[in-house]
């Protein structure tokens, strides 16, 4: 029997009797990161990287039964050795390494290779079988180095300020928003945010993360406060009545999907920035190569394309279907 199997509940380790990121309730769930398509409600027992605990509780309720372990530390289930390794996707995001009788599998969860300054950077883990995400598994997805991208974002903000417009940026509230805030922290005088953003931000500041404070926007916030401010909102606020109060404003969307013009036009954004917490095509290939794995399972995203490409390069690669998506697609059906 395979060490990890793809079942209708999730990725299952029969020998250790645990599931990785199950999408149906199970007894024991190992969670790669706190996004809702990976960390779902209703499991009896959760195991995650320790810095992920407050985020998991924020998302799933304070009463969940959760245990945290630090990166690189091993824990055993029925003789199956399990450890978590930085995935660089967001705070607490982990790749799950599973080992039994010398055979090693790694399930990547979501990951990116570029160090974003907030999450612990991705570390490749040697294994025989690698289960990799492939959200952006097409060669058209090639991310611009973040320094360059953030300087384009700051320029756009300055131009808006000169034109007397408020800059509204949409970014996924958990992960992307913190990355953005961290990089804007000394570039912007006034940062304001939607409640979904400030909730997470306040929590993380309390945990000691070097994030700037973000003023929460309430119905009482005077309109004059928005002038020259930079406002961070979740993608779901896009086009809503909530947004109208910022007029005149310019809307910038931060998402890997912004790489393609058609997507940007659909969002009615004034500016699109292809900022993603997922690996781009080159990143996926590098990550796969660094594991040394000879067998690859590609899940979510352009999995069939990515698996076919790897097969043509001589790897035993196949596509598996899971219930994971891309956190932005889940909260915003427009993508």
């Amino acid at each position: 029997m395979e060490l990890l199997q793809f079942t209708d509940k999730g990725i299952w380790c029969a020998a250790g009797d645990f599931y990785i990121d199950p999408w149906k309730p199970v007894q024991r769930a190992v969670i790669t990161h706190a996004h809702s398509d990976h960390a779902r409600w209703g499991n009896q027992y959760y195991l995650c990287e320790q810095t992920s605990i407050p985020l998991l509780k924020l998302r799933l309720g304070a009463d969940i039964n959760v245990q945290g372990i630090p990166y690189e530390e091993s824990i055993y289930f029925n003789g199956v050795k399990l450890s978590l390794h930085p995935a660089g996707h967001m705070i607490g995001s982990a790749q799950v390494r599973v080992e039994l009788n010398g055979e090693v599998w790694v399930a990547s969860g979501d990951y990116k290779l570029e160090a974003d300054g907030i999450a612990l950077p991705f570390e490749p883990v040697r294994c025989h079988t690698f289960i990799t995400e492939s959200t952006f598994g097409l060669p058209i997805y090639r991310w611009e180095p973040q320094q360059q991208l953030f300087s384009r974002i700051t320029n756009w903000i300055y131009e808006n300020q000169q034109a007397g417009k408020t800059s509204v940026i949409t970014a996924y509230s958990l992960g992307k928003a913190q990355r953005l805030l961290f990089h804007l922290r000394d570039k912007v005088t006034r940062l304001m945010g939607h409640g979904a953003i400030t909730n997470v931000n306040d929590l993380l500041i309390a945990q000691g993360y070097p994030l700037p404070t973000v003023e929460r926007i309430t119905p009482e916030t005077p309109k004059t406060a928005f002038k020259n401010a930079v406002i961070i909102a979740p993608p779901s606020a896009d086009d809503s009545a909530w947004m109208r109060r910022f007029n005149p404003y310019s809307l910038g969307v931060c998402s890997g999907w912004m790489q393609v013009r058609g997507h940007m036009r659909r969002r009615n954004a004034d500016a699109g920035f292809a900022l993603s917490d997922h690996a781009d095509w080159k990143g996926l290939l590098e990550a796969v190569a660094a594991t040394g794995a000879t067998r690859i399972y590609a899940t979510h995203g352009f999995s069939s394309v990515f698996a076919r490409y790897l097969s043509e390069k001589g790897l035993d690669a196949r596509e598996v279907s899971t219930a994971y998506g891309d956190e932005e697609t889940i909260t915003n059906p427009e993508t």
Partner: protein
Amino acid sequence: MVTKKLLLTRKHNTVQQFAQLVQLLSNSTKTNEKLEALSQYFATAPDKDKTWVLALFSGRRPKRTVNSTQLKTWCMQATGLPEWLFNECYGTVGDLGETIALLLPPRSHSASHPLHYWLEQLQQLEKAAEPEKQAFILQTWDTLDDNERFVFNKLITGGFRIGVSQKMMVNALAKTYDIPAATLSHMISGTWDPAAVTIEALLHQSTSGADASRPYPFYLAYALEETPAGLGPIEDWQAEWKWDGIRGQMIKREGQLFVWSRGEELITDKFPEFSLLTDTLPDGTVIDGEILTYADGRPLPFQTLQTRIGRKNVTRKQLQEAPVAFLSYDLLEWEGADIREKPLMERRTLLTQLVQSQQQPALLLSPEVAAASWDELAQIRGMSREQVSEGLMLKKRSAPYQVGRKRGDWWKWKIDPYTIDAVMIYAQKGHGRRSNLYTDYTFAVKDGDQLVPFTKAYSGLTDKEIAAVDNWVKRHSLEKFGPVRTVEPLLVFEIAFEGIAASNRHKSGVALRFPRISRWRQDKPVTDINTLEDLKALLRQAGGQTE
């Protein structure tokens, strides 16, 4: 607006200025912003670039010297990607020029040239051998960033889908040069070569000395959404049938005859029927009308006209089976004078006299439809299909002939389309704004226990519905044939169309005119969709023959 100005002036005199304009135009959803950006561009760009931009955005694309297949092949060579992977990328991006721009490795160095430099270089490639073309394209790609590459590729393949209408461009130029939009529109119409003409020459010529072939911009109507009672007394309005042919302009100047289509294409040679008019029409005459296939006092179905479109050489057989006539609507120039400002009733009187004096079977008057009341007119409208017409046109008798699509004086009052409930069986990804979304569907009707595909339709759903259907398609695909997915036949849509004709090229035996999705019938099960027999009944009703 300061933002846009900054963006546009930063990289002066280079193709980047144009690339930024394109980016701005394609991102913006606000007409005013686009107008401002264009007008800014025309105020600051090098003169030679302006003429090219005018040409590019008004459909005067330069001749292609490099084709799409070559671009694709060279990109695959440069990136080492297999063809299937290139095609997957193209399917997702929905635009070849953009796909290539995204796939190429980052440039090794940068070079700045104005827009006209690239266009002239491209034109010079016309006679060049393939390796020379390839070398030029690869070298150029290597000096451009993603955005400039996209624009460069679009210059080669043509077709900027960036939501700039001719009208918007005219308005922007009118603003920059302080020339009335109507005059300007006329100045830039007709045939001219952007490489040979300067913008100054184009905009400073007086209309009288202009190219003899120059057409006037067409006046276009909006659809009437309410009942016509709100338009006031019926006596103030002239009603005509709305013909389904090719809107055209017939021009006789300096002893020559020119026929233009609404797409500003010169189509004189396609219709030898009109050549007799060269001798009989007086110089300085411009008539607005509809080109129709016409026999025995009535138009033939649009499909007959299609046998004449797209053919340069017309056979005797075609001339007999599909004879063409020009049904005149309006007179725009008379005895060399622009009479568009005169009220319709005066123009109509002159037009009637002119057409009657000609006594030519190829030049007819589009008749007025007389009615004593709006109710009576509504009844007459109900008989449009018997007239091979799409409904009625209502034109205010006191109105001038305007430029472009304007509300108020002209209305089209079309009859309701035919509708058929059908099931979606194939889906394909769209282009442009709809790239990477399944938006192009093929529909089928029932024939016993079989499903027979009968039409494709693209438009008609809201963005929300498109997102929902796209999501559904991704989860209910049965098979994949290249870009096409076969889906479970479960989603029912109402398909509206304007006409139906027999066709031996389609499995269903019918071809539809202007099919589109009119609504998503989430209330209707697949068992209740229409049948092939229902389609054939419509065909018989429309006067077409089934095989």
